[in-house]
């Protein structure tokens, strides 16, 4: 009997091994040759940390794509260029197009870089596929072959105010017109874009906007105390702070020192409070901060459509395997965007700008079908729509960013509403 079992197991192992070998062989045959696209990332300079994670997200999804038939029957491969600043973004885009002959360029993580990079690509009539920058001007320049998979900053502002009005105000027992909100922001096009749209939306829905928007340069700010002293006098319920890098821990540490008490702080994007460095810097002292992002821990796979569940799960597992943790914002933006590029290329079967464009415009997929639970519906300007690119509110809870809103997508619930004294947020 025992021998029979071992024989069965041995046969099973051999069969499995053969299948695996056969499958690998079939894929090997199907993918003849390489298809190169250009990838622009800030790998040195102040954005290097996020740029590297963004590239990691691209690489993981490139491998998922190649395991699933590649693009246009070929293996997808990257020509990567380092673009620490806008000048480099433009010149490297030119180089990839003229020297490496790429027909599609993607990137760039940052709103500081995407404008210059896409402008250069557009001059050569090459497809520019942006996955992360949120500058609202990006799709308003009449450039025909420039696309963006992520929502723009106006969408961030829209979601943030929606969260404050629908979720926070009731839990503070305040009507929207009783809720006082103050705005501070770093002054790049990213911060300004999100903040201006949030201010406009806040006024529309009748929140009390206190004080002027406090803008600062995130690369040179060394002391936030004057801002905090000013804010203390305005006594807002909610602080809407768009931070970029080290300005987030600086504000949080000094607000704690000054014992500045407010009921909630809301941020948007994978930078500042939305980046993993904030959690590492603050640990449990960062508890309670909200950041609008792609979905994090707590995100329910079951809330997605079947296709979406499968690719989202494979994506998460692949990131987990590579980095040992749940996907971070930069991974998700890159991953979601690159997967969508494959979906478009599967339809177009060509990198001809006209055929590519009609494939993009023809896509109409509901929320929950893609990585991050996104859907797809591009406007004529090449922008994926706010309603389809579902965003989620995450909160720092004991060193981890977890999904807390909209509640139908998550198993976690927002805590510390309103925020208590600084030493009682454990």
């Amino acid at each position: 009997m025992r021998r029979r079992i071992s024989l069965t197991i041995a046969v099973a192992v051999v069969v499995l091994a053969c299948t695996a070998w056969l499958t690998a062989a079939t894929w090997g045959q199907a993918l003849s040759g390489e298809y190169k696209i250009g990838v622009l990332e800030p790998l040195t300079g102040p954005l290097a940390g996020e740029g590297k994670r963004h590239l990691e997200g691209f690489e993981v999804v490139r491998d998922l794509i190649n395991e699933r038939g590649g693009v246009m029957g070929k293996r997808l491969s990257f020509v990567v260029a380092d673009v620490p600043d806008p000048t480099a973004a433009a010149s490297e885009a030119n180089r990839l197009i003229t020297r490496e002959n790429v027909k599609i360029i993607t990137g760039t993580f940052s709103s500081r870089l995407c404008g210059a990079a896409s402008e250069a690509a557009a001059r050569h009539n090459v497809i520019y596929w942006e996955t992360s920058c949120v500058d609202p001007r990006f799709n308003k320049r009449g450039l025909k072959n420039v696309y963006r998979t992520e929502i723009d900053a106006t969408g961030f502002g829209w979601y943030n105010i929606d969260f404050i009005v629908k979720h926070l105000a009731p839990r503070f027992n305040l009507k929207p017109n009783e809720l006082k909100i103050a705005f501070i922001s770093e002054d790049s096009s990213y911060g300004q874009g999100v903040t201006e749209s949030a201010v406009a939306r806040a006024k529309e829905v009748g929140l009390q906007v206190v004080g002027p928007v406090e803008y600062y340069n995130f690369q040179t700010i060394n002391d936030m105390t004057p801002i905090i002293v000013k804010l203390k006098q305005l006594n807002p319920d909610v602080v809407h702070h768009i931070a970029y890098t080290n300005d987030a821990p600086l504000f949080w540490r000094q607000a704690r020192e000054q014992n500045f008490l407010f009921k909630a702080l809301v941020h948007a994007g994978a930078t500042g409070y939305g980046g993993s460095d904030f959690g590492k810097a603050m640990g449990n002292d960062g508890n309670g901060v909200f950041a609008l992002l792609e979905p994090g821990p707590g995100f329910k796979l079951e809330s997605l459509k079947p296709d979406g569940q499968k690719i989202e799960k494979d994506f998460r597992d692949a990131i987990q395997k590579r980095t040992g943790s749940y996907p971070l914002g930069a991974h998700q933006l890159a991953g979601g965007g690159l997967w969508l590029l494959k979906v478009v290329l599967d339809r177009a079967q060509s990198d001809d700008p006209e055929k590519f464009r009609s494939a993009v415009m023809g896509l109409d997929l509901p929320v929950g079908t893609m990585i991050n639970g996104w859907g797809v519906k591009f406007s004529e300007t090449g922008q994926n729509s706010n309603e389809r690119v579902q965003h989620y509110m995450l909160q720092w809870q004991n060193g981890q960013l977890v999904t807390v809103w909209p509640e139908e997508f998550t198993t976690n619930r927002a805590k510390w509403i309103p925020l208590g004294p600084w030493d009682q947020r454990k």
Partner: protein
Amino acid sequence: MDPARPLGPAQIDVFAQLGVSTVLLGGIYALIAVGLTLIFGIMRVVNFAHGEFLMLGMYLAFWAFTLLSLDPWFVLFVSIPLFFGIGVVTYLLVMKGVIHASHNVQIFTTVGLSTALQNLALVLWSGDFHTVRPWHAATPIRLAGTAFNLSQVVAFLIAIGLTVLLVLFMRWTHTGRVMRATAQDRDAAILMGIDTDRVYRLTFAIGIAAVGAAGVLVSPLYAVYPTAGLQFVLLSYVVVVLGGLGNMMGALIGSLIVAAVEVAGSYYFGTAWKEIFYFVLFIAVLVFRPAGLFGQRGAENLGV
């Protein structure tokens, strides 16, 4: 908010807090600028890599804290001889070759060194932001309506101490006199039998030791990352020009002026204005008092 509002207790607290913030921020700027002004004043070299040595000091504190759980205040004692050594080595490998070259060559060399060090840090330690959080950084002190933390106070006191020590050293020791003589007239100093090469080596090493110590001291206050130095170094030039090239006391007072402009400007006009204010001040000083507020007339041309 409104300066015309009657002076109530709340307003007085605001002034007190702004005053405290100015003094403490000024202390940090002084800590960084003292080494720069020393190198500037004696060697007549604009060290564009100054901020990168600050960054290296911050990384030293970070790794010592993360790997060995050493408090930055302890690391300070190690950092001074260590950075003195780094200064000597950098001088021998890099600065010695260009010390007699034109200013352009010196600028290109130090800018190159700066970029090389930034990228070395990036390759070795990635672009992530790190933080050092010893107990004193997380300890707020509340005093008469103002708040600050212990790390800042200590950084400020050490800045004062360091400046005073350097001033005394320059004024009263033989080595200090030799250094001043070299700064005033290199050729005459050589004729008097002074080994100027040794003076430059010592100056550079002291300057780097000072900024390395500054990096260790500011590490609990600011994030540690490869381009952390850039955040402060531009400011240090303003401070150094304001205080007078090579004038250590001037650097201390210049730091306080810059910090006051920054804090008051941020509070009354908005933070976006702060750089406009202190660069206008910078240009005004260059136009009306090119030797700086406390520098000797004509000192800006010495040795140039």
